[in-house]
């Protein structure tokens, strides 16, 4: 495989220089990595780091005023205690998750109270493993792969979130596993996990359409999928293949403007199976827990997330608008208007980028979080786990565009946090300034989205097979 990968490079001297210019992520660090760093060692170091943090967290909880552990972790533990005695986990106020989580945390009471944190940190490490698997499937060279995995494993936001007892790493692991299953053609397994993850957390529902489109556009049965070796060292830069690459844009735009074609072409056996199985799993879980816990489950675990309008300050631009209106109900027009930008962006991203699945999911998640009515810091993990999957295809160099993006995002966040601190801990009326800071955060997110889109080398996950009716490509890009 490595010979094949390098074949295109060695034969075409001219393209090596061009390739180096096109993708910039590899330029972030010297390509001569020390031989001692490999994936296994990175995982071991990450594991020790997380174990150390969990132990430190226990110490800080016991000895200091401010706790290391997230307040949500205590909510989960209390709910697990309730469930262990046969009661409903929703008796614990502010428990707004699936009862599955409470069941998962029952060993908190039997084994040790840090069982949940260990579970979440293991999911965290699993995400690193899955990132590696996905990048291997897409034939990314080892150095790039290790760097991408390191972006997840050694991201301070990431390792604190699992060790503090937040359950998001589990969701991230499930989503990455679904991507792996789809790439390997295991549609049924992907559908099962997808139904489960939507039950667990509602937001992955935004991935439904891209999954269906990807499953459909491969036009092949499971196990016959041809994985496009969309590595940065081949593809568009190879002049011989350029003419034969299917223009993804025209196909997508045809589909966008001809809804009947879209519907017709989308109902293939794969997408049908996917929809059916994931829908059934979701409804089964909902029905089961409704039977067990009644309306409390539906209200707290499901409907709360759909109708959540929290007037308290958060990163979202809508918070002040919601606070100013909290004493009277929102009109239907207002609700629709706030939904419109979200819908526009999601649809545009899906129809343009669905074929490059991880990229599409990443953009969708960033946009979803940025335009949402409520934004809390834990939502950022949702796209952090997808970031390593797109980095190898980004031509953005660390100097200076990469750094600009990072500092823009973090800077606007810190700016917001500053005003939030003044409001909450100093008690000054800075609502307008805080609201402007949230607008700035949205602007920063938009700029970053635009830059990432601009610098990404679009590469489909699957190349259309020979049997595709409207495909013009006949080359297996190996």
């Amino acid at each position: 495989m490595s010979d094949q990968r390098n074949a295109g490079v060695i034969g075409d001297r001219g393209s090596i220089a061009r390739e180096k210019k096109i993708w910039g992520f590899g330029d972030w660090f010297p390509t001569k990595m020390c031989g001692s760093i490999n994936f296994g060692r990175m995982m071991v170091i990450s594991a020790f780091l997380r174990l150390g943090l969990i132990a430190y967290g226990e110490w800080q909880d016991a000895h200091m005023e401010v706790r290391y552990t997230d307040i949500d972790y205590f909510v989960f533990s209390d709910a697990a205690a309730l469930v262990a005695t046969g009661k409903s986990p929703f008796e614990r106020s502010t428990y707004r998750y699936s009862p599955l989580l409470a069941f998962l945390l029952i060993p908190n009471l039997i084994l040790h109270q840090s069982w949940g944190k260990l579970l979440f940190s293991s999911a965290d490490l699993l995400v690193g493993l899955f990132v590696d698997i996905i990048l291997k499937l897409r034939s990314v060279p080892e150095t790039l792969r290790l760097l991408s995995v390191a972006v997840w494993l050694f991201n301070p936001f990431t390792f604190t979130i699992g060790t503090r007892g937040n359950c998001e790493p589990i969701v991230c692991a499930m989503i990455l596993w679904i991507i792996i299953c789809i790439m390997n053609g295991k549609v049924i397994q992907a559908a099962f996990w997808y139904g489960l993850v939507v039950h667990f957390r509602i937001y992955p529902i935004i991935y439904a359409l891209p999954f269906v489109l990807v499953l459909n556009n491969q036009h092949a049965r499971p196990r016959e999928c041809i994985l496009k070796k969309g590595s940065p060292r081949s593809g568009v830069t190879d002049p011989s293949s350029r003419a034969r690459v299917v223009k993804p844009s025209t196909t997508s735009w045809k589909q966008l403007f001809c809804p009947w074609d879209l519907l017709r072409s989308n109902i293939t056996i794969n997408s049908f199976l996917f929809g059916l199985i994931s829908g059934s799993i979701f409804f089964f879980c909902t029905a089961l827990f409704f039977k067990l816990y009644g309306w409390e489950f539906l209200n707290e675990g499901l409907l709360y997330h759909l109708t959540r309008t929290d007037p308290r300050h958060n990163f979202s631009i809508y918070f002040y608008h919601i606070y100013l209106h909290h004493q009277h109900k929102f009109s239907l027009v207002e609700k629709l208007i706030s939904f419109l930008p979200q819908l526009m962006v999601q649809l545009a991203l899906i129809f343009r980028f669905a074929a490059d699945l991880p990229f599409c999911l990443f953009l969708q998640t960033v946009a979803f979080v940025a335009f949402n009515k409520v934004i809390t810091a834990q939502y950022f993990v949702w796209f952090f786990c997808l970031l390593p999957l797109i980095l190898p295809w980004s031509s953005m160099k660390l100097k200076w565009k990469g750094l600009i993006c990072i500092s823009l995002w973090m800077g606007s966040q810190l700016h917001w946090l500053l005003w939030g601190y003044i409001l909450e801990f100093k008690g000054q009326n800075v609502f307008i300034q805080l609201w402007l800071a949230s607008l700035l955060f949205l602007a920063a997110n938009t700029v970053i989205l635009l830059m990432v889109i601009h610098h990404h080398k679009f590469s489909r996950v699957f190349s259309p097979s020979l049997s595709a009716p409207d495909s013009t490509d006949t080359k297996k890009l190996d």
Partner: protein
Amino acid sequence: MLLNAANFSSSILFWRSKVFLFLLWGIVSLKVDSFVLQNDVKRSHPNIVIELPCSQKYLTGYFYEKHGQILESDFHGLAQEVGSDELSRSLVHSLKDVFGFSELNRHLIGEGSHRSLVTNFKLNIKPNDMSWLNNHYCQVVVIERLPIGVFADPFELQHLVEHQVFLDVAVIGDTNLELPSALSNKSVVEVHMNTTHNVLSRQSEITVELPLHARYPPLDVAGYSKIEFNQPDLLMRCKSQVTQRDFCSWILTGWSDDTHKNGIFWLVPCGNMEHTTLVSSITFISALVSALLIVLSVICRSTNEDMKNS
């Protein structure tokens, strides 16, 4: 016994401008101005003792269970409701004026939306009755009626109990941490503290530091919403260590005087309704502009790729 206490209190209260009813559960109210227990002449705060089974840990909880609402100052009414028997009546008589509270000081510490309400007072124990004290185990009970604009986090208070800052705590009423004031209800906090009983001093100083959080207040043009605190109710809860009776006496020796507000204010920043139109329109416009920018960039990129590949 309760009837006697009621008659006694009613005769005293008759010539007082304000009548506050005491809760027999041992919530002792403290007057704002200094109170000297030894001054028997003008006793204006009769003791009321309520006997309840010791299984009833919280007076406010008991009231809430029976009536479904927050306990107000109607202790007298509650006393009558609980009823009395011979033993109780004699007990009340013996417990008359055993305890007193003085030098109540209250202030808020901290800044912003999370502050602590500190209540300082002195517990005075009448010397004649030290023997009684030896036979009983007593705790101080402070009942804090919180205005709508603030709330106490039950889990945080539980944490304090685990760290033995308080002996016990109960929060009754609206404990929703997330809703703004306009959609919230009142709540009451009952805190049990240990006295320095073993030392048996005539006067011991008690400090209760209650962490509170401000809710999002209703909108106001002024930009700040003022939250005022009432006086707490202070009682003693005593259990006899000599007799076999499983009854705890709740002793009220003073009353909460609403006229003597010691002026604790908490200013919470609030939204200004005059901003509404501007904020809403700019919010929606920004969201729309950002969305359009992204959609346009997606379209442009497709067009560019079309041109590149054609």
